[in-house]
């Protein structure tokens, strides 16, 4: 990954997050900016992008107060707007290339996905702004989160589209008509027979009973496909998206193989922190020279970068572990990851167990477990009560699974979306590239 390629990407796309409630006085405009990509763009350019966006939002609000503008098509650029939270806007500016026709809706979904994932891990941006009115907290979180989200994998081959990172090779790969037979924000389900489905439900019941009386949730996946969950639809989509990005066997193996490259990506990120400094006020100086998160920790900003690559690994006991959430001060045991549920606004521990293709994610309310010790006990219980069952379920599912091309319909490229249930199914990515026949069926 060279500087030049970085530049390529920056020319192709700009992404910014700004808060309309900030910096409303003359001379304070920089305060609005919560995030800007590429970060090394001159401040004046950043400000002009945000100024234009703000102007458009304010203007269109006159006519449509509830739903201001969604997209502005300029001669050479498209501006995609997404109001993630009240007065917090995300704007993506993409260059119109001759051959690329952007699916604006898909781009909006990218923005939405970034935001919902962010909220899942950090809570709402507004809450972060309120906690630290200087804006340092939310900027730091947003910066690392979105950079991780966009960060590149050099080694990603075109056949591995299924991992949803955007940077393919050296260029940010955004969804366009040509190659994106997938619908962001939907689930890909595994089709299972009745008996297997009952086995899975039986396993789920056992897992949930391990947590005792507390209401907990689970999400069962096979390879990159969802098998069962009892989460609300919106939380399911979020957690599923994250799992496909970082937790499934495929994601884990990518993480392992591209370990060295992701290191490079990290440093690449850090080289560009400079831009952040300029507009983030006094707090920014604290992490100007930071090569890792430690200075932030000193300032009570426990920096968590859940989208960091290759941070998850499978432990000996079958549970997936990561030190993203830091380590316990007294022991080397990593802190158990937590997320926020959108539906119930509860903070939950994530416990992920993996056996071959099967990944089971269990969510337990933080309030009901007594810290790391409780988690360890729970893990023990799961191993005792459910590991055999998971073995059986995995065996049964893999017996019934037709491989990654199972849902291929020969001669066709298709994308099937069930908008009611947030489910989609598409031709397998491997097949999509080899097919020349353009027979797209869009149902939405």
């Amino acid at each position, binding site marked *: 990954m060279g500087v030049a390629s970085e530049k390529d990407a920056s020319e192709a796309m700009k992404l910014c997050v700004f808060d309309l409630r900030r910096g409303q006085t003359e001379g304070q405009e920089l305060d609005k900016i919560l995030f800007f990509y590429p970060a090394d763009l001159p401040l004046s350019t950043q400000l002009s992008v945000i100024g234009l966006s703000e102007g458009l939002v304010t203007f269109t609000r006159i006519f449509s107060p509830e739903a201001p503008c969604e997209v502005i098509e300029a001669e050479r650029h498209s501006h995609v707007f997404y109001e993630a939270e009240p007065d917090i806007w995300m704007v993506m500016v993409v260059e119109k290339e001759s051959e690329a026709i952007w699916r604006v809706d898909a781009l909006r979904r990218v923005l939405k996905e970034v935001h919902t994932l962010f909220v899942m891990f950090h809570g709402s941006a507004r809450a972060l702004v309120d906690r630290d009115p200087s804006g340092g907290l939310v900027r730091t979180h947003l910066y690392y989160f979105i950079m991780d989200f966009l960060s590149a994998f050099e080694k990603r081959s075109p056949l591995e589209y299924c991992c949803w990172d955007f940077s393919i090779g050296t260029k940010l790969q955004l969804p366009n008509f040509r190659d994106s037979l997938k619908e962001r924000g939907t689930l890909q389900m595994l089709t299972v027979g*009745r008996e297997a*489905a*009952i086995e899975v*439900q039986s396993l789920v019941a056992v897992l949930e*009973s391990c947590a005792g009386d507390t209401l907990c949730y689970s999400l069962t996946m096979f390879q990159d496909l969802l098998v069962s969950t*009892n989460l609300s*639809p919106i939380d399911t989509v979020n957690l599923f998206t994250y799992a496909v990005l970082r937790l499934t066997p495929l994601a884990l193996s990518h993480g392992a193989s591209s370990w060295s490259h992701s290191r490079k990506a990290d440093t690449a990120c850090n080289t560009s922190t400079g831009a952040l400094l300029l507009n983030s006020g006094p707090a920014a100086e604290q992490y100007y020279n930071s090569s890792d998160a430690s200075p932030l920790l000193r300032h009570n900003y426990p920096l968590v970068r859940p989208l960091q690559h290759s941070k998850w690994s499978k432990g000996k006991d079958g549970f997936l572990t990561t030190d993203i959430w830091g380590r316990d001060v007294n022991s080397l045991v990593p802190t158990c990851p937590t997320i926020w549920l959108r539906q119930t606004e509860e903070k939950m521990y994530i416990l992920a167990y993996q056996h071959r293709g099967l990944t089971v994610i269990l969510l337990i309310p933080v309030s009901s477990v007594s810290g790391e010790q409780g988690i360890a006990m729970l893990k023990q219980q799961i191993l005792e009560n459910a590991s055999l069952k998971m073995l059986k379920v995995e065996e049964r599912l893999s017996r019934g699974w037709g491989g990654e091309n199972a849902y291929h319909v020969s001669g066709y490229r298709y994308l099937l979306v069930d908008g009611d249930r947030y489910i989609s199914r598409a031709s397998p990515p491997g097949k999509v590239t080899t097919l020349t026949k353009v027979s797209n069926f869009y149902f939405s």
Partner: protein
Amino acid sequence: MIGEASSSSHSCFSGSNALSHVYIQYPPLRCHVPGSRSLFYDDGNKLILSLTSNQVFSWKTAPYDPNVAPSSDPIREGPVLSIRYSLDLKLLGIQRSSHEIQIWNKESGDTFSQKCRPESESILGFFWTDSPTCDIVFVKTSGLELYSYNNESRNLHLVQTKKLSISWYIYTHESRLVVLASGMQCKTLTGYQLSSAGIIRLPKFEIVMAKPQANNNPSLAAEDVHIITAYGRIYCLQFDRVAMLLHCYRFYRDAVVQQGSLPVYSNRIDVSVVDNVLLVHQVEAKVVIIYDLFADSLSPISAPLPLFLRGFSRANIASTQTASKASGTSESDLSDTEVTIYGDQWDFLVPDLVCDISNGYLWKINLDLEAISASSSEVQLILEFLQRRKLEAEKAKQLCLAITRTIILERRPVPVVAMIMDVLLTAYSHAIKTGSYYKRIRAEETSQSGASNVNKPKPAVNDSTTGIDASGKFIKQGSESGTENESYTRSNVPTSDPDGSLILNSSLPDPSIGSERGYLLEPGTSGGEDLPAGPSQILGSGNNQSNSNVSERHQNQVTSSPATSPADLYSSVFAQVEEEMARDGSYLVAIIVEFLRSASLEKLKVHPSTYVLMVQILARDERYAQLGTFIMNKIIEPSKEVALQLLESGRQNLQIRKLGLDMLRQLLLHHDYVLLLVQDGFYLEALRYARKNKVNTVRPSLFLEAAYASKDPQHLAAVLRFFSDFIPGFSSSSDHHMYRRIAAEMAS
């Protein structure tokens, strides 16, 4: 174990004493007649015989009925060493001395004697058999002599002899097995099985006994060896008085295998088998220990507890006294004599009777399933135990259901309940495969229709049996009755081992099915017709269920299998606990999922009401996502009931309602689907669908009303036009006129 929720189903159980697992029920069968000299038990015919100087009185003991009236036959005076009726009850054999056996033909009144050479041998005993080659077997000190009875010449022909020096023998008709002891210490045992399939010689085997002292070799006594049958297997139990152990041997066709030893806590013991359960009576300790030999496990079912005399109270005595006076029997009353449990005069009869010789009482030993199940915390074991019970199948079934209910109400961990579901449904599927479950249904059918039920859909395995059951009556003695036994045993002993064990699957009657009943109920003997109905008779009639074609008694509550069907589990467990579990829907759903898993493993069909219940619970808890998954994966199988429940529950959630509509459509319930569309106001879509799927059962007026309600004259006109075009004669109907007018008014 028995929770409050189960109280409704418990009314039928009589109060049980928690301090005993085995009981005898008052009143006993009184087999005492004035002037009687001695009592004999004819186990071939299950008769208790009492002798006076010139008469023999006999009481049927199976089915057991304490009020059964004796029948009597005259006999000649003289000493009687043993006495047995032939299996068709036409001949009476009396051993007069160690050299002479008299045989009296009841029909002709002839008597003849069979004697042996007194100088060289003596007769140890005799018994009748249903073997095809011989009718009666004499056991002599020199060996076995097998005779057949010739009807015409009316005497015995020697068929075969088996030479062997015999010290003593034991025989039970139940096992058709005679065990002969020979050798200095009588420790060498030889067995012959004389069944309707022929004669099988079992390998000789040696009993090893502990020696009290170095030079003292005790000899084995006949009373220390017992033959028992359980689950169609034959065991030999040998009491080692020195080691205080009861050694257990199992007979196979080609081997005798020692199974282990049971501890003994008394110098005098005896054994009974009730419903395939082994009871070891520790007579001196006055307790009984229960073993279930099914899984070859030699651990007791529960702790040693005394035998309990049930229903014995002053009030009871008074009533039975009047009753007995009314019925004209004058016998000594229990009020005068104390009932001594495990008295010295108690004689244990095969398999489950005990005779108090001094008082002339015959008791039947019963298991208190309720107490047994209440005393064990091993739910899985106790359910398996109950599922193997046949004598009190209905009670065992109710207990199983009650236990399951309690377990669920106690919120035991899901895996525990899953295990229970596995046990119950495996047993049920087994009962269906072997046909024993359908026995009950058949009994009900025959008692209602009395006709043959061959046409009824039944598992193929069982149809042939049914045919014999329903039409065969009771075939005459001899080889033919053997075939009947065969079919009985095949279909009714699910426990029959495929390992070549000596289970006598050709002739060995399962005690609970009791093909001997065939002999007992032989028309001509005063039979079961006088069996009174009443709570105390459930056992008796239960024992008799397969004979419903012979004696048309009401037997609706009778069953031969405690198996709980999925429908039973729904109605007696899920539906009942559902209310109390209202706050814990997810637990109950988890339980039902386990139930479905077990059912699908056994390929059993689940009643739609179970699915309806699941939909109700999930919708009530607003777990719509999960409900959706269940429907999509067909964990909840589609049915009209489920679809309607989805529509009902879907009032709060459109997704769920849509699932219900989809299900209706998938089930091709076009009529209901169209009706619902109309009700929801989608009358145009309903029309399109009706046209496409040729639904013409929905009244046009419904569509017209819906169109009218939408206040769109064009739509109304379109609907009118649709019906005029596609329904012949619609233009002349009153609907047409009325709505045409309305449409015109609306348009104007």
